[in-house]
């Protein structure tokens, strides 16, 4: 019994920590209908500013808090002004990507300034601890809870009773109407970003003190957990975010209690998926409330795709096909092999995200399913590699579609969050299902690619194989797009309500898109597995999913040629920037931001 009290307290303590991020996210979502993936980076920046204040300047705690809040608010204002305001009138996917780009830039700047080594951030509170249950809680726990609850309360009061708060709520309800009624929407946005960033910065600092440790990896984790908590509580609902955070903390804590530590995040993400499926507007919204996304298809910008003449494509394909006959280095071939593998993944994602509008952030899971299937079949059952790769594709199509199907009824950002969670779940299942996947040890000794009994080992043969597979998949996808399915998918993307009115079943067509796309991604993962000879649960991670999405946006949503072009660019550019070593992710983030700002429809345009 006593232990359950401890688990409950521990859950609430860590829930407190999540709440600090979730409240900021909720505030921003409430006004701009935007999930700010840069919130974790502001949290990181706050932690390091706190470190400078405490360790270098020796400021007392109240002053530290003020310094961090002001500095973080400034960062927030800069983000709003330079990163997001220019995107006001673009498609709603643009600011989402911009926040991802901003988070890359901020994280890298912190890493370059402070080095990636973790640092201690000593707490400035006296180490007074109170016995609760069998454990103790300290002053800092109380301070964190206090900051979380007070800020939620203050925000609630501010939104309800102040003039600016009224303007914020009006803007949240209907931006255009608010503007017509004389609300200065830009000022509202500034206020909101400033407040949210100040809160984010202070929370990063407090959490850093709580763990006496800050490092650059804390940003992504904070964002992930904050987003989960926020969505559970109901996106845009500030008090809901606090409750959602505490609930998330409790679920994790009880999950650890019952099943063990390595299942912890599994429960967090399962909770998220469950809430999204059962109550897509969050736990505290009424079940039949209209979905929070816009009802017409403005998530993706209209654009006129750039048509590339067939002969040019044929020349390009021919050129790449004969490339290994020339004296190019194996390094170039290997880089292009990576591009072709990423190209297959991008083909898959451009179909589901671009053509049918399900912007998936968990696409690496499809790679993993294909890779594990093919690796295990060829190793354990001695299935010929050629067949195993196809089986990997089929398994990815079947299992991937089944897993993602709960998200079919969701829209816009919610799809992204649900797929992100599903991707994490797949990775965690691979980690924990040791009897099949060999858990953290991974699978080694995977046989090399082979075709009709001949091993494909040389760089050129692997190059030709992966290039041929990608071209075939691209041709098939091109054919699919010109069929009635292509127009049905695009109709669902543009306006799913009108599509249903004309007999298009969302489940049926989203399933078909994921089946086709899942196959391509699964084949890509399977080929990678045989190429690497070793895979584990970390081989196909979230970064891979985000990279694929960037490729798709770069090439133009739904654009087959664009997906391949984007892959070559995004595999090639970091290699070109190798010379910049530590700076290359920074450059990558800046390129992403410039792209979203100046060519949101991608290089070749949305199809």
């Amino acid at each position, binding site marked *: 019994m006593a232990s359950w009290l401890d688990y409950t307290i521990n859950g609430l303590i860590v829930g407190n920590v999540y709440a600090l991020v979730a409240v900021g996210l909720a505030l921003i979502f409430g006004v701009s209908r935007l999930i700010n993936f840069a919130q974790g980076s502001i949290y990181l920046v706050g932690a390091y500013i706190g470190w400078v204040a405490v360790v270098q300047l020796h400021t007392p705690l109240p002053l530290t808090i003020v310094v961090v809040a002001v500095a973080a608010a400034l960062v927030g204002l800069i983000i709003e002004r330079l990163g997001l305001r220019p995107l006001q009138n673009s498609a709603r996917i643009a600011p989402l990507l911009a926040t991802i780009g901003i988070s890359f830039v901020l994280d890298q700047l912190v890493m370059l300034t402070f080095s990636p*080594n973790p640092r201690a951030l000593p707490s400035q509170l006296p180490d007074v601890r109170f016995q609760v249950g069998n*454990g103790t809680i300290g002053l800092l726990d109380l301070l964190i809870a206090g900051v979380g609850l007070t800020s939620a309360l203050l925000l609630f009061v501010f939104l309800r009773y102040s003039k600016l708060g009224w303007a914020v709520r009006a803007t949240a309800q209907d931006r255009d109407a608010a503007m017509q009624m004389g609300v200065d929407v830009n000022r509202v946005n500034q206020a909101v970003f400033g407040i949210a960033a100040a809160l984010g910065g202070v929370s990063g600092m407090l959490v850093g003190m709580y763990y006496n440790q800050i490092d650059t*990896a804390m940003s992504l984790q904070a964002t992930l957990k904050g987003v989960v908590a926020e969505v559970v509580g109901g996106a845009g609902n500030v008090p809901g975010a606090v409750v959602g955070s505490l609930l998330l903390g409790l679920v994790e804590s009880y999950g650890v*209690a019952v099943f063990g530590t390595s299942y912890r995040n599994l429960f967090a993400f399962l909770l998220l998926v469950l809430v999204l499926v059962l109550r897509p507007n969050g736990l505290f919204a009424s079940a039949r409330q209209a979905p929070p996304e816009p009802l017409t298809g403005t998530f993706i910008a209209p654009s006129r795709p750039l048509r590339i003449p067939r002969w040019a494509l044929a020349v390009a394909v021919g050129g790449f096909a004969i490339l290994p006959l020339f004296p190019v280095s194996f390094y170039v071939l290997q880089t292009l092999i990576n591009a072709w593998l990423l190209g297959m993944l991008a083909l898959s994602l451009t179909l589901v995200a671009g053509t049918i509008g399900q912007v998936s952030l968990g696409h690496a899971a499809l790679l993993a399913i294909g890779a594990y299937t093919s690796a295990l079949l060829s190793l354990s059952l001695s299935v010929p590699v050629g067949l195993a790769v196809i089986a990997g594709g089929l398994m990815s199509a079947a299992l991937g579609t089944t897993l993602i199907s709960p998200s079919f009824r969701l829209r816009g950002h919610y799809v992204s969050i649900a797929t992100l969670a599903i991707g994490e779940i797949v990775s965690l299942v691979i980690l924990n299902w040791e009897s099949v996947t060999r858990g953290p040890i991974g699978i080694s000794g995977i046989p090399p690619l082979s075709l009709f009994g001949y091993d494909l080992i040389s760089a050129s043969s692997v190059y030709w194989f992966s290039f041929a597979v990608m071209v075939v998949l691209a041709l098939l996808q091109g054919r699919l797009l010109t069929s009635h399915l292509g127009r049905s998918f695009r109709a669902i993307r543009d306006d799913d309500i009108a599509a249903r009115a004309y007999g298009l079943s969302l489940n049926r067509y989203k399933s078909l898109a994921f089946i086709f796309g899942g196959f391509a991604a699964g084949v890509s993962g399977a080929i990678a597995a045989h190429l690497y000879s070793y895979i584990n649960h970390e081989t196909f991670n979230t970064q891979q999913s985000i990279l694929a999405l960037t490729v798709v946006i770069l090439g133009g949503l739904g654009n087959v040629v664009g997906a391949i072009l984007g892959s070559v660019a995004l595999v090639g550019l970091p290699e070109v920037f190798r010379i910049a070593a530590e700076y290359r992710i920074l450059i990558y983030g800046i390129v992403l931001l410039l792209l979203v700002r100046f060519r949101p429809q991608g290089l070749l345009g949305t199809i």
Partner: protein
Amino acid sequence: MSNMDRRTLVRGSLAAMMAGAAFSRAAFAQSSEPILLGVSGPLTGPNAQYGTQWKQGFDLALDEIQAAGGINGRKLAYSFEDSQSDPRQSVAIAQKFVSDSRIVMELGDFSSPASMAASPIYQRGGLVQFGFTNSHPDFTKGGDFMWSTSVSQADEQPLLAQYAVKRLGLKKLAVLHLNTDWGRTSRDYFVKAAKEYGADVAITEGYIAEERDFRSTLVRVRDANPDGLILISYYSDGALIARQARQVGLKQTICAASSVYSPKFLELGGEAVEDVHLGTRYFPEDPRPEVQKFIAGFKKKYNGQEPDAFNAYAYDAMNMAAAVVKIGGTDRRAIRDAFPKVKDVSSVIFGTATFDVETRRVKGAMNAELVVRKGQFALWDGKPT
């Protein structure tokens, strides 16, 4: 080893020696170009800190090698390519190194997925992949071009078990481990050894690298009622666990794997890591000259900073690379064949390092039993805590 193999090997190494000799004499006179090693490791991404620590260790070793006249008069240098510990990038880097005739051998990568994905390319390209942090038991099975000085967990964990069970007298253990290939392998070796020494392992808990909050895990541990906690952790997560263990009211003895050995562990853990026991491969008061030289040199080069385990691994790896290149010259195959020939290379971790030809790893890591006392690592005096 079959006769055939041995013959080839002998002939190969003879040729290599001759070539090496001829080459080095020629090089002596004409080439001012340094001998180039390729390093594939993380400089950005979630493991960036380890790449940074590698660089420090490498640079210190190179300073000493250069000061001692380099490799037969030529300088030794490395080209560090950032892989983010991502297998996709490490394979590209592998092709790059294999294609670059100036690279004579490769060091890294950091994580097993990244290293082992690149192994087939190094093996086929005939370039030694010297994975000095790759403890995955299958790493050196990738081929005869895969060599490692990473301390085998089969060696290390029984030492830790001995410390915990035999020396500290712990009888009922809770094991917390990073749920990675390293942590998992280590746990299995540890549990096996601890049981052989007669201890009972009450609970094992694996956690992911990004985990920050361990309070609930520690309640589980507490309920298993152990008399000692074993941490198979890196220093950052080890420090977090130690702090939170004290917060949830666990007062048991904590005994940690050598990977927490870092000044950062003391800094991040604060008072909570007081009295934590750990086995290490070296410690500052170790009178061995190679250790004293390493620590003094490191502090001098990096403004008084204390080195940690990853600095030491990198430092040793560079010295080992130099020793190998000295024998093998600049021919890639000759370098592979030189690995079994290097004898008793002075090493912080091993004292003297010699490769086992079968496993292509080094056995016999040094062992020191330390405890944290007054915020410092100190040799354990045998007193219970």
